[in-house]
Each structure stands twice: as C-alpha cells, then as structure tokens.
C-alpha cells in the first residue's frame, strides 16, 4: 500500500474522525482482515450484532463502510488503513468477498461509463453568469458608498495620528468594522478588526497598523477606479474587499472560458488549519498545491468554515495528485478550487523551487505588481541551509544571503537536525517579514510541517 500513518490520517475528514480512527486501529477489534492486489478489507466489531464491513479500493483510493456515517472515510476506514500500515502481515491474502466484489465491480462500471451531459448546461451557465453580474453590480454600489464613508473616517484618523488609537476600546474598531461588513466589504472589515491585535504587539506596532490602513486604503482606491481596470484586476479588488463567488458558480463561470482551468499533476506541499484571526465562529484551512509541469504555478485551496463544520477538502500532503483546478479570476491567479480529482496519486520525488533568495524575491515583486491586494505568498526554495542563531531560525542560500524563518515547535532544530548543516529544500508562506515553513525535502524525504491550531 505504501502509505504512512500521517498520510492515512490526512484522509480523515476531520480531527475527530482521525482520533476515532486511531482508536479503531486495534487488531482485536477486527474479526477479518484480508487483502489482494486491488483492495483490502475487514470486518470490525461494532455495537450491533453484525460487524461493519469496511473496504478500501487501492485504485483510487476509494472507501466503503456499512456503518451509518455518511462522511467518508469514516473511523472504520481510517482504522483499517492504519492497521494496513502497521500490521500489513496480519492481512491474509484472499479473493474479494461478495460484498467487496459487488462494490468494486460497480466502481469499475462507474469509472468506465462516459459522463452524461449535464442537462441544460448552457442554461445553468447563463444563469450563473447573469447572477454573478447582477451581484457584482449590486455589491459594487454598496461597497463604493460604504468605503467612501470609511475613507472619511480613515483620513480623520490619520490627521489625528495613529498614536491616538492606542487607547481606543475594542468597540471603536468593532463599530467601524461592522459598517464595512454592512457595505459588503467583509475582508476589509477583518483587516480593521485585526488592528487591536497589532497595537503594542511589538515596538514598531504603529508601522504594522499603518500597513493595514494602507492596504484598506488601496482597496478603497481600487473600488473607486474599478471601471477603469481589466476584468482580472477587477476581480482581484472585489475578492480582496469581500465579494465572494461560490465554488459551483466558479465552475459554471469557467465553462464559458477555460482560461482559469488547469488539468495537471499537483504536488500537495503544505497544509494550514487555524482559527480565523478575528471571527471566532470561523476556522480556516489552506492547502498549497504546485503544478509539476509549470514551474511558477501555485494554487491555494482556501476554505473558511464555521467551527462546527468539517472541511470539504482532504488532500494528502507530500503526494502528487491528478486534478482539474479552477482558479478565481485574477491578474495573478492563485486561489482555486478542485473541480475534478482522479483517484490515482503518487509520491513526491523532488522539489522544484527557486535556486536562491534573489530569484524568489523577484517572483514576489512580480506577484505584488500584478496583484497588490494579495496577502499570501508561497515560497519554494531549493538549496538553502538552515542556521540557528539565538533561537532564531534563518535560511542561507548559496550566495550567503539570509532570510528569517518562523521557529515554532522546535521546527528550526528539527530542520537543522535533518539537514546536518547541508542544503535542503523548503516550502512555506512568506509573510513579508519571515518565512512560515510548511514542508521540506531533505535527503530524498518529504518532511511535513503542518500548522494545526484547531
């Protein structure tokens, strides 16, 4: 099978299933454990009189379980897969039993069946386009009016000076942010609400606050000039301000032009799960993908969810997946959704990153120039050597130039331990100040360094 424990756990739809899966991965809970070249399966003791029939089709992978959970893979599947990793030799070689065989045959038939055309697709597409155009017009009107009011508020504040906000209560920001939310400028509101967190956070906090104000001001300027910019730039501004396009609408809009659709093999390089920075009701998941054929093409699969909901995407970090991605319209396409994913996947075998820091920063300047409203910058570097100095982690490139790297949970020491002082390849997010490491390629091994703060 060749999976690792971490990869198996990454299939779990949420942490709870992963945890329950681990507790199901006990040999004594399983009455039957069998496998063949195509699949493996087992019978797991449950609370009922009959065991749950659980199977995994390696041609995928695809999962089956007779338990009532309708969010695959369930804990039984995760448990079974973990057992297959840990106790492969305990799985007896066997032809598929009937229940497994029926499922595999159906799957084969389904995969071989030509896709039926979507009835009245063109109607759906036209409806989506019309709806989107209408929403853009409506939103823009509300945004313009709200942001112009906010511009007056912001200018007053700059006249008074940032030092004057130091003692402002949280409600000062909350009230102003609420007006931005009413103006459909939700993302601008989030930026504003994050400012109290910056105040006095470091000795130069006022610089950080000014940068936030600058970013919001840039949005205001963008919205005011939106009729004069190209369509991709228009969407950069709209999306950065707070306009949203649902996944389905995104797919439908791209049926007309496949400009933003890319069918490729994608290396899944990193994963972040964290609470939303200001909205306690939300949590965020970000996956970073990189095209294996186009050196500079990254994709950010960004998913905000309510805290009690599960994330839709569950991608195996460190693997290469075959998928069709649809990007959001942009002057520098980066955020995307997965439209189709072929079940096969393979191991990552190398990192294709920038050879030195200058090359990376050149790419950053291109990205900032193309879309100054973006705030996420992927960074993939080859041949950088980690170095620790007074608990601060740095990367040094072949030109003896350095950048600071976030050193959380002993990551700096782990990178140092793995590298032994030799160059490594590293992937992470560049914040403008430091690199947040998410994975590394060291000595022919993929090292996952996910952020999981949920």
């Amino acid at each position, binding site marked *: 099978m060749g999976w690792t424990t971490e990869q198996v756990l990454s299939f779990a739809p949420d942490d709870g299933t992963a945890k329950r899966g681990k507790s199901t991965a*006990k040999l004594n809970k399983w009455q039957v454990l069998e496998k063949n070249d195509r699949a493996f399966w087992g019978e797991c003791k449950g609370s009922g009189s009959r065991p749950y029939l659980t199977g995994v089709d390696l041609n995928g992978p695809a999962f089956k379980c007779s338990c009532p959970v309708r969010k695959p893979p369930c804990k039984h599947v995760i448990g079974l897969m973990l057992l297959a990793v840990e106790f492969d030799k305990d799985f007896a070689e066997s032809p598929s039993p009937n229940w497994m065989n029926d499922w595999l045959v159906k799957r084969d038939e389904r995969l071989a069946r030509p896709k039926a055309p979507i009835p009245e697709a063109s109607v759906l597409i036209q409806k989506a386009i019309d709806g989107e155009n209408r929403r853009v017009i409506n939103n823009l009107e509300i945004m313009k009016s709200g942001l112009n009011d906010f511009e007056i508020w912001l*200018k007053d504040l700059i006249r008074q000076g940032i*030092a004057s906000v130091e003692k402002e209560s949280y409600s000062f920001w909350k009230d102003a942010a609420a007006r931005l939310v009413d103006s459909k400028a939700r993302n601008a509101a989030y930026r504003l609400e994050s400012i109290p967190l910056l105040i006095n956070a470091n000795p130069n906090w006022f610089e950080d606050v000014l940068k936030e104000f600058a970013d919001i001001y840039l949005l205001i300027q963008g919205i005011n000039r939106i009729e004069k910019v190209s369509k991709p730039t228009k969407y950069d501004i709209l999306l950065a301000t707070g306009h949203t396009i649902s996944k389905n609408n995104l797919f439908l809009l791209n049926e007309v032009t496949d400009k933003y659709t890319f069918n490729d093999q994608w290396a899944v390089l990193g994963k972040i799960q964290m609470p939303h920075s200001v909205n306690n009701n939300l949590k965020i998941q970000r996956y970073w993908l990189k095209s294996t054929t186009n050196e500079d093409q990254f994709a950010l699969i960004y998913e905000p969810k309510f805290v009690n909901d599960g994330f839709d995407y569950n991608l195996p970090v460190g693997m290469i997946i075959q998928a069709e991605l649809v990007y959001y319209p942009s002057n520098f396409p980066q955020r995307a959704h997965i439209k189709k994913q072929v079940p096969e996947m393979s191991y990552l075998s190398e990192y294709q990153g920038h050879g030195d820091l200058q090359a990376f920063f050149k790419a950053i300047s291109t990205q900032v120039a193309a879309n100054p409203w973006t705030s996420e910058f992927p960074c993939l570097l080859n041949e950088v050597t980690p*170095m620790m100095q007074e608990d601060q982690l740095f990367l040094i490139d072949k030109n003896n130039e*350095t*950048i600071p790297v976030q050193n959380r949970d002993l990551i700096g*020491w782990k990178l*140092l331990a793995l590298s*032994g002082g030799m160059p490594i390849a590293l992937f992470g997010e560049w914040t403008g100040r430091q690199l947040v490491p998410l994975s590394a390629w060291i000595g022919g091994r993929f090292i996952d360094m996910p952020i999981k703060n949920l």
Partner: protein
Amino acid sequence: MNTWNDIVKVALIGSERGQLSEGTKIQLQKLGIDTNSDSAEIVLKASVLWSKMKHAGYQPVKNTSVLFDPAPKETQTICSLKSVKHLMQILSGSYKDALPEFLQLLAEKGQRLPEEVLPDVLEMAKNKQKQWDLLRDIIGERGEWLVSQNPEWQYIILDTDLQNWETGTKQERLALLRYWRKKAPEQALGLLQNTWKYENINDKLDFLKILQINLSINDELFLEKSLDAKRKEERKLAAKLLSKLPDSQLILRMYNRIAPLLTIQNKKLQIILPNEINQVTQRDGIDIQSQWIRGGVKASRLGQMLAVIPPPLLVDHFNEPPKKILELYWQSDWRELLFQATLEATAIHNNELWTDAIFTFWVEKAKNEDLSDFININPLLENISENLFNKVAMMGLSNTNGLLEEGHPIVHLLKLGSHRWQPQLTNLFIVGLQGWMDNAQSYWAGWHYKGILKKAAYHSDPMFYHQFERGWPREKRIWGTWEKEIEGFLNILRFRKAMMEA
C-alpha cells in the same frame, strides 16, 4: 531619515501636527503623488506606495556569522523503521511512559535515534537526568553536532577531564562530579575538598547532593566539617548525608542520645521525651522548632532522632526481633511517632529485613485498620528493592479475597511504578481482578485498580502478553466499565512487546 520612516512618523503623530520632509515630498512627487492635496490623503497614498514597494523590493540580508561545519558522518546504525514508528507514537503522547525503556533498548542494541526526533527527545529529557547517560549513547554524531549549537541541551555533554573541574561551567562541573563520583568516589571527593572554600552556597548544595552517589564512611570527615558551616542549608544537608552512614559518628552520637529515652519495662515500651536539646544535638541536624509529627515539639525531637537510627541497632538495643519491636510500638501511646520514625530510618538505611517486617506487620494490621490515615509509607516505598517489592506485593495479593482497599499498603506499593513486575505478580494481580469482575455485585467499586493497571502495563514483562490477555470476562456486563482500561493495559503491553521485537 529615510522616506518610509518619515511617512510613519507623520502617520504616528498625525498629519495635522506633523509634516513630511521636503526630501520625502520630492520622492513622492517623482512617483506621481500630488503633494499639494489633503495631508491625510498624501500620507495614505505614500503609505500604500511605500509599503508595497518595501514588500516587492525586499532584500535578503548578507550573512555575517560563521556557519557550523556540517555534521560528521554517522558511525552507528540507525534504529529500524519499526523502531522509528514506535518512537513517533511515544513522542506523540500515545505511550509516553515507554520512552525510558525505548532508549534503553536502543542503547543495548548499539543503535542511534533518527535525526528528526533528536530535538524532541533532547528537549523532553532536559529535566530527566536519569535518561542522560542513555541518551549520550544513542544520539549519534548528528545529535552531538546539534547539542554543540544549543546551550540548553548541553546538559548531555560529558567532559570527564579532571583538569576542567575548576574552569567548567556549573553544568559541566556537576556532570564531571557525577561521573567521577560513580567511577572513583574518593577522587570526586578530592575535587570537592580542593575547591570547597571557594564555592558559593548554591553550588555547594548541588555538589553535596551528588555525594549521595556511592556515599561511604570515607566521606565522613568532609561532611563533619560541613556540620559547622555558616549556612543552615549546608549543615542540614551534611547531617542528612551523615545519617545515611550507619557507622558514622553522627549515628553513634544520636544513638547515645536516644538509648536512655527508649527502654522496655514490664514488657512495655517506656518513653521519655527529650527535654533540652543542646548545641551539639542541633549540630547533628535536629531542628528544635519543627513539628515533625503530631504530638508536640518534644515528641518531634525524639522522632527526628529515631528516624536516623539504623534499625539493626534497635534490635540490639531492645534485644528483640523487628516484629516484636513493631508490636511494642503498636501498643505504645506514641505508636504513630515510633512507627513513622522507624519506617523512615528503614528507608534511609535501605534495610530489607526491616522493610519486609514493616510491610508484613502493616498488611496484618491493615485487615482491621486503615493505617494510611496516620502513617506515610512513601519514604519506604521509594527505597524498596525490586525483589522485596515483588515479594511483598505477592504476599499482599495472595492473602486477599476480592480487591484490596484503596488505602491498603499494597495498593500504594503497586501504584509506585518504579519496579519491574515479575510475571507471577502480574498474573496474581490479573487473576484477582478477573475473579472479582466475575462475581462483582457493584460496578462502581475498584476504581483504584484502574490506576494500578496502567502501572502494571509499563512494568510487567510484555513477553507474557498472550498469557495476560486471557481470561477477561468480556461477555459480562461489568466489562463495559472496565473495557477501556483493560484494553489500554493490553495495548501498552502489546506495544512494548513490538518495541522489544523491532
């Protein structure tokens, strides 16, 4: 002042109060910003432009520090992939109590830890001195290279060169002293004697603690001098160490003090509480103010004296065997004081015969009375030998029908978790629990056994797993309330078995 700083300054104090410098204005004009417009607008536009330019034009910094040479090649073989998986499970918290055993197994095989776990293991072991010797053998060249760069992990470095005694850092000196105290105790004592008068009190106390390793009568003279030290902490620690030497002058002096106070008359123990405590007695570590045990200051002084007397001296003194002496204690009005003091003395002198006697006595008395209410058995538990642990525990379990009460000394003993359980002991414990589960009337009893199960899991021999796995009443209703703990017990054993076989 550069342009960005100028913009930030004006933004900070407010564009009504502050003004951009002429130089900044010229810069902004060149970039297309109208500097004659509203002052706030100029600052905002300038902030946008400059913050984006700063981001887009970020320049990495030239490294000026000297890089460490790459780590040398490893000479030891890395542990197996299975072992790596086991270690990952331990580090993720699933079986974290199995770490010392894992390290021990690796050291026995002469293998090294994989690179990626070195920081976690080194960090985890920072405050666990018992693991340092083991770690030293299994971190490999990479580990040593890593340690050389992190001062917090340099506890592991062992510099054994005696020349460095006077020049090393405190951590190095402690490690050096510990090493030589184990290898050549008198040489280590010589090190201390040479520099003692120059050491500060905190170092002195830490060094004295190391003298406990291979403590012998050869240390007496040195420690006697410390009884006259200026600082009370030093005097107290020296007295404590001397009281561990059965042939020391301190013990003799203490015995001479206590002998006339404890006598047998008419088959009963007669006790005189000490009235005055002179300077010499205080010098030997008796605290005149302390309330050592319930019963007042005088009783406490007697207790402190008795608590260092080697129990064999009591046998000679009373001319009675341990069991009889304990019985005499029991009948005395001061039974709590006498029993506790002798228990502590037994622990200090690590006397097996008396440990056995005290446990046997306790097990006997525990049938009618919960002694743990007024006697603290922990000092004895901490020092009990492995053989005696198993012997006493088996004795306690075999004399019991059903489960032992929570306050029973054997329950305290089994919860210790510092000794290996012989398979017969595990078996006896399991059979007892299974028997009780088979006939249990109430499901809420026996919770204290759940804690013991966890200890048993880490200290029983996992090679007997298949034997321990059998006989659990899985079909009974009570199983539901015990399944988690018993399956946990079996899982840990299975994990440890796999760890040994990896």
